[in-house]
């Protein structure tokens, strides 16, 4: 079938990109002049012990062989062990990925639901009062540091108002987590009718999700407006207007023609948001992949950093692929070559 053929070819095109990504994560540690040996051996190690550890880590091999070894390890699912805890990195990352995805899902979902309608409305009356207001708001959204916003929210809603739980984890310590179904405490709580857990999870979700939604909505508003403006000035829409169609109909034509570039943009935004989200996780002690990665960076645990950066890049590649596939589905004009 033509469609599966397209997906297969599109997936093949990713391979050179993956090699580049692997090379970069490999170089990140090797070129940095960091010495894992010193860290592993400790201050009292003798010269022989140093040499032994070097041998064990394969650091005496030529650089290209180290890269080949690293690549084959990664392909076999071995991301190495943390320099600090000696735990396998892949296991740590796998356990945390779902925790982060829960936050990302709600954050980007709500951000898109806010951003796209606002951007469209701004584009329907360019330079009107609504457009000016959303423009300033979106620029402000670009300018607010995420972590600071999270701290202010904790101050207002936890310290001052006592509405929200303290920013620690994703469910209250007093509540036992629901049975594992999807990995999202909130959804699992609802599925298993564990209302206490669902409620506790919801209260923990609200603040970080609002932070993420605000930060993700800002660029979506700006870009949706720009995309819709371009569509509005296209011949299609001019013809629709000239044909005397009702405003409502014209607007739905604008929306349908803007959908493809908007999906593409939201897809590319997810990559950046994963970075922003890690800061939110850090502030709210969410315990997900982002917090793990930031802690690894701050502590200098470079196998963990390497694994983290690699997994993020893989995630982006998958998202880009998914965007292409979604577009091929929603856009009948898309060229499947």
């Amino acid at each position, binding site marked *: 079938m033509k469609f599966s053929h397209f997906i297969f070819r599109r997936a093949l095109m990713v391979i050179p990109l993956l090699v580049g990504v692997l090379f970069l994560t490999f170089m990140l540690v090797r070129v940095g002049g960091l010495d894992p040996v010193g860290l592993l051996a400790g201050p009292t190690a003798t010269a022989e012990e140093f040499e032994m550890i070097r041998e064990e880590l394969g650091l005496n091999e030529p650089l290209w062989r180290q890269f080949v070894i690293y690549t084959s390890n990664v392909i076999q699912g071995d991301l190495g062990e943390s320099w600090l805890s000696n735990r396998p990195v892949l296991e740590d990352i796998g356990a945390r990925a779902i925790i982060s995805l829960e936050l990302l899902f709600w954050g980007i979902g709500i951000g898109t639901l806010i951003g796209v309608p606002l951007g469209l409305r701004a584009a329907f009356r360019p330079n009107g009062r609504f457009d000016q207001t959303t423009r300033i708001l979106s620029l402000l959204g670009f300018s607010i540091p995420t972590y600071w916003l999270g701290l*202010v929210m904790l101050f207002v809603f936890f*310290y001052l108002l006592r509405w929200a739980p*303290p920013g620690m984890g994703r469910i209250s310590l007093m509540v036992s987590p629901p049975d594992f179904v999807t990995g999202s405490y909130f959804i699992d709580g609802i599925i298993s009718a564990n209302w206490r857990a669902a409620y506790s999870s919801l209260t923990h979700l609200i603040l970080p999700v609002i932070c993420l939604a605000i930060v993700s909505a800002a660029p979506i508003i700006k870009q949706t407006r720009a995309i819709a403006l371009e569509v509005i000035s296209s011949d299609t829409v001019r013809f629709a207007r000239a044909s005397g169609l009702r405003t409502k109909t014209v607007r739905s034509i604008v929306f349908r023609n803007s959908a493809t570039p908007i999906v593409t943009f939201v897809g590319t935004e997810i990559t950046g948001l*994963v970075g922003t989200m*890690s800061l939110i996780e850090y502030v709210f002690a969410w315990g997900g992949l982002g917090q793990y990665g930031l802690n690894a960076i701050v502590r200098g645990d470079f196998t963990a950093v390497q694994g983290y*950066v690699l997994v993020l890049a893989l995630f982006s590649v998958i998202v880009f692929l998914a965007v292409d596939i979604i577009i091929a589905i929603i856009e009948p004009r898309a060229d499947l070559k």
Partner: protein
Amino acid sequence: MNNPSSNRWTLARVHNRARGLARLSPTATAGVIIILFFGILALFSNLFMPHDPVASYTDRILQPPSADHWFGTDGNGMDVFSRVIYGAKFGFGIAIPAVLISLVIGVPVGLIAGYRGGILDEVLMRIFDGLRVFPSIILALAVVAATGQSLLNVVLVLGFLDSPVFARLVRSEVLSLRSSIFVESAIAAGNPTWRILFLHLLPNSIEGAMAQTAVRAAWAVRISATLAFLGVGIQAPTPEWGAMIRQGTEFMITGQWWVAIFPGVALIFLVFGLNLFGDGLQDILDPRRRTSK
């Protein structure tokens, strides 16, 4: 151009220009005012700081805002107001050199890639595409942490990581100019390649990149503060805004809000000013955006 007197920036002319800008783009003007405000704070911080930004008054730890300490004192007993003012130096001190480095790397790369084309161009574009799969903040953090944590390194890494933005913009302009008549005649007149690149193509392709500088400076200020917030690159007692927010983090849930709030507000204002200016700049310099409004 030929008449030197017409180009002289007398005070009246500056005034006139400013009014012209205000009419053309009120948001850009607001941005300029905010940037100038922080620029003055950064340049003449000694005049505005009531206290030494790193002197710690051990008897006045975590005091709320008062007549003596307008923004209160932090956990070390340092005056937050003075530290916020001093922090403006870091904002500009990191953003300006970082953007300059991005331009110095990105513009020539874009020029050469666009003009030469072929495999070189293809490879460069693939590399730039590849870099896009990494979240910029995480890449910046990881590279700074891996290559050594110093202020200089933060500037170098930010400048380097952001250079593809300018390279892309210049490249796409050069691609459309490459076969234009003025370039062909410059070649026919026997100009060496470097002259064609830097004297003929550069002035005609730089506008889009220049329009982006303010927005990229805003990015650099934001990211450098984020690095400092995590304690990567810039360490805590330094009066840098991100580092100050880091110091105030633990006090936010115990009620001493002033330690983290004020540096955050300063950071937002500077980044917002740069973004406002950048947004207006793009409107003014990019004719496509102007007509589409």
